């Protein structure tokens, strides 16, 4: 027996309210999970990137130390080379000054240049020529000067002049006029 004139509607659990709630929570939970995954992924990449940066930094630190070593070595080479070049030039000037010091009337036969001394062998027409024209300038340069003479066959004098600087003075042989 029928109590209604219409057919009963089919009942479904997916009502409009349910669909609304399901889609709301579905979207919400999906967004939460996506955000969480994004954060986890970013954490992972940050960690890797930081590790890489630290490795690169350590590599750079080592490189910097090596470069600094190389720079200081080149500077050391440059300083030494400059020093040697200067010494050679000082030596050249010293020798030039020494030969300029010898007057034309005196002839040298031997010259020994030492670190702190000078020995000259030569011949002079008179002792006075030697004393005034060679020994005087040598005395102004060297602290100790010794001279010895012996006669030559032609009436001139052979001489040996030994000159030393004190040890506490500048050791470089720098003969300046």
């Amino acid at each position, binding site marked *: 027996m029928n109590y209604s004139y219409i057919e009963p509607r089919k009942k479904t659990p997916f009502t409009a*309210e*349910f669909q609304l*709630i399901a889609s709301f*929570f579905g979207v*919400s*939970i999906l967004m*939460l999970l996506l*955000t*969480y995954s994004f*954060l*986890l992924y*970013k*954490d992972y990449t*940050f*960690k890797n*990137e*930081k590790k890489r*940066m*630290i490795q*690169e*930094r350590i590599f*750079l*630190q080592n*490189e*910097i130390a090596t*470069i*600094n070593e*190389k*720079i200081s*070595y*080149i*500077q*050391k*080479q*440059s300083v*030494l*080379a400059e020093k*040697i*070049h200067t*010494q*050679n*030039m000082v*030596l*050249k000037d010293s*020798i*030039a000054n020494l*030969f300029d010091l010898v007057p034309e009337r005196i002839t*040298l*036969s*031997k*010259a*020994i*240049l*030492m*670190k702190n001394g000078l020995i000259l062998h030569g011949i002079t027409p008179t002792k006075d020529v030697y004393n005034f024209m060679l020994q005087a300038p040598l005395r102004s340069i060297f602290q100790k000067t010794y001279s010895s003479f012996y006669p030559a066959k032609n009436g001139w004098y052979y001489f040996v002049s030994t000159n030393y600087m004190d040890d506490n003075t500048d050791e470089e*042989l720098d003969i300046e006029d």
Partner: protein
Amino acid sequence: MILVSVFLLLFVLLFSFFVLIPEGQHYREKRLELKKATLEYQQYKDYHDELMANLKDLQHKNRHIITAFDTIFNPDRFQKLNKSYFSSLTLSKLTREKDEDGFAVYEVNTSSHISSPKNFYDFLDGVNKSDWIIGVNFPINFQRDGEMIHSSFTMKVYANNRDTNKTTSSLQKR
């Protein structure tokens, strides 16, 4: 349905407050740390680049000196290069001396004939431009020998100490 809704709401809230927000803070901390590490790295990189430029500049300016320190002394080549200054030039055997400032030092005695002291001055100028780092040392003897001057002197040749030094030739390859 209300129960399910309440449960889901609770889940969303709890997940947000106890998982997502702490993870977000963690993310911000990590991002800050990375930024700091990147900045630090960049500072090192800038300093490294600056140093590298300095090194290149130094290498360029001192290339003759660097090569000279790296070049092994060759007596035959030395004689060939300097024969124009002397009428005759003889070199003794090279002997190793005590290191100076970390550089290897070799000593060689030289005996030569020159026609005038000017030859010797020119030789000293030439030595400074030679392929080696050479210092002419005392004692220097000049002795009259007929129309010529016999000269003898000691030279010190400076070179990279191959025992301790990594040598600068590697620098030039960079």
